[in-house]
């Protein structure tokens, strides 16, 4: 009888000590197609965590990019954020308003040393990392070498060289450089690093707290001027504001464009849907610089980061999941599966694509911010970017409009 009582008491104590692990569901939300249940490396990642934590079930909720931010906004408004999620451009404001865990309070400095500096910096606000970069990214120019040879030009080293070569491309019937801005988020990717090329600091502009610093400063005006000169010269496809990214890639695939502007994740997409001509002939290059010996500043960072809901009922378990996700052996599965630029230095060896590895090598010398997190910044810049491309605003007026719109958003 005594033994029976002891067993019963021990069962009760065990249940009381681990109530959370008895049947806990960890809600994870992402817009990244790679993290849908059914994808090999994601399934393996989730299964590994569940095996290490009996009684825990990871529920992966995928929301397509187009609907992701609206969904996230609705969840924020309803106070029902998931445990672990991609915060996107809302990461800064969510963190500052206390909704996200500051990872510095949880992990030691050695943990952060594992990441490339640029991607980690992008999700750090007021010295507090509210997001941990998932995959990193860097932008470049992908050229069709067959077309370049046919036209008789080299991939341009400077913007002026590119403008000078436009008549040759046009005479041969090619669009010089293809990209699309229908969704309005590619123009900032292209334009913001130009501000860095002219000596501006996009992080500081986005923060907008440094005395005397504003969006109508000279580097911004100069960058808008260059963007508009490129557009007027015919560097980009006709109707660039009405073409989306897949369509602009098709221009490259179908041999209508000589070059394509894209990020380090695109070689993975090329491999899936590129034409043979494109796959056989494309090469990757740094975006042009202002001068022959200038720095080829280009967008780096991370397109997305993982954040943890600070108010969630499973906060500790969520942090455990994050630590697991970034454990080198686990992260390597994903990096190997995605074949994209990893945010953790240790995973570089997993990348077999030589073009991606070439792009990774640029991060130490040519990186610049290309995503804005401050209230109103992204809208203000992307709106003026469109106007600069279609010539409906002058560079000086455009810079003033960005500044005015940012200020209006921060007081409304």
């Amino acid at each position, binding site marked *: 009888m005594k033994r029976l009582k002891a067993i019963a008491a021990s069962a009760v104590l065990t249940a009381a000590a681990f109530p959370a692990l008895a049947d806990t569901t960890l809600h994870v939300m992402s817009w990244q197609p790679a993290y849908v249940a059914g994808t090999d490396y994601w399934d393996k990642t989730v299964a590994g965590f569940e095996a290490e934590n009996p009684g825990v079930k990871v529920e992966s909720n995928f929301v397509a990019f187009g609907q992701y931010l609206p969904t996230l906004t609705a969840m924020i408004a309803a106070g029902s954020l998931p445990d672990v999620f991609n915060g996107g451009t809302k990461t800064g404001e969510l963190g500052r308003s206390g909704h996200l865990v500051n990872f510095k309070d949880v992990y030691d400095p050695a943990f952060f040393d594992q990441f490339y500096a640029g991607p980690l910096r992008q999700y750090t606000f007021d010295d507090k990392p509210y997001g941990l970069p998932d995959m990193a990214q860097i932008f470049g120019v992908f050229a069709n070498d067959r077309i370049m040879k046919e036209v008789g030009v080299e991939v341009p080293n400077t913007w002026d060289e590119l403008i000078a070569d436009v008549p040759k491309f046009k005479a041969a019937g090619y669009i010089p450089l293809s990209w699309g801005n*229908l969704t*309005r988020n590619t123009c900032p990717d292209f334009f913001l690093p130009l501000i860095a090329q002219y000596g501006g600091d996009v992080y500081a502009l986005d923060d907008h707290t440094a005395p005397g610093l504003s969006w109508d400063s000279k580097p911004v005006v100069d960058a808008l001027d260059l963007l508009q000169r490129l557009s007027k010269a015919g560097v980009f496809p006709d109707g660039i504001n009405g073409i989306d990214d897949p369509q602009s890639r098709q221009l490259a695939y179908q041999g209508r464009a000589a070059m394509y502007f894209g990020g380090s994740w695109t070689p993975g997409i090329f491999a899936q849907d590129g034409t043979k001509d494109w796959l056989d002939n494309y090469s990757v290059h740094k975006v042009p610089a202002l001068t022959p010996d200038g720095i080829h500043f280009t967008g780096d960072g991370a397109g997305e980061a993982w954040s943890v809901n600070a108010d969630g009922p499973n906060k500790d378990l969520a942090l455990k999941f994050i630590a697991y996700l970034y454990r080198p052996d686990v992260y390597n599965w994903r990096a190997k599966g995605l074949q994209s630029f990893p945010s953790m230095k240790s995973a570089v060896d997993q990348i077999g694509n030589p073009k991606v590895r070439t792009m990774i090598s640029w991060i130490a010398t040519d990186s610049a911010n290309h995503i804005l997190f401050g209230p109103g910044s992204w809208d203000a810049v992307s709106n003026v970017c469109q106007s600069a*491309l279609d010539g409906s605003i002058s560079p000086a007026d455009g810079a003033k409009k960005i500044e005015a719109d940012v200020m209006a958003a921060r007081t409304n």
Partner: protein
Amino acid sequence: MNVPSRLQPFIAPGLFIAPAAIALILTTAVPMVDAVLLSLQRWNAMTPAVWTGFDNYVRLAQDETFFRALWHTFYFTVCTVILQTILPLLIASLLNSGIRGSTVFRTLYFMPVIISLAISGLLWAMLFEPNFGAINSMLRAMGLGAFTPLWLAGTNSVMPSVIIVSAWQSLGFYLVIFFAALQGVPKDLYEAATLDGAGAWSRFMNVTVPTIRPVILIVVVLNTINGIKVFDQIWVMTAGGPNYASATLGTYLYSIAFGAMGASNSRLGYAAAIAIVILVLSIVVSLIQIRIGRRRDLDAQIEV
């Protein structure tokens, strides 16, 4: 409990109405009042809302993009009301005149209606693509390369392009409504008109149109409501672009409210103010249409 005798007749009807009334209050009236209150606040969903009175409305009155969206909504509504009423009516009359194969044509015209807006929007976006889309490729092949518009990518051509798609998509729906109405027009009216020497156009204007006027009014009202609240078709095809050239009140509200396309700052109070303006506009336009409809009915009665 004794219920006063004057209230007793209302008890049974009240009990029957109560569930629906409560549901309506909870699902319509409460959110509406909530939206009005929200329009008087500044709220990004992350920090506590701040009461700002009519500040959002004052800003709206100074917002150029809002007025562009308002103009596009008006433009879309007027064009679609005209096109989507006249075209289906004419084609329905043609099919009703007894031409051979009218059933086949009716089926063909109706097919776009059963395709989802998202799918047809994407298909048309591909057809309209200015660089390699089928329409411009065909024009180039015909030697008309100089006349290849940017379609959805051009600030001047985007609204007409979107309107063309809207007319294509909805033609079959309104055609079926008109066709059904035309079946009910007495044949002897046409015979009498023919005997009086009326030609085809005269019979259409003096017999067909007056007889099916209530149906025409319904189609106009439906088109107007669809025009004012247009969102999904434009969002799928252009997301309100390029550079807000096809932004309507619906797409502008959505991008302000939910920070779509990468935006970092949701302005829910401001978006609620836009929603209230759309509501007021819809009420005003509906009242005008109802008033016009009543006046015409009155005129018709006087004529009789």
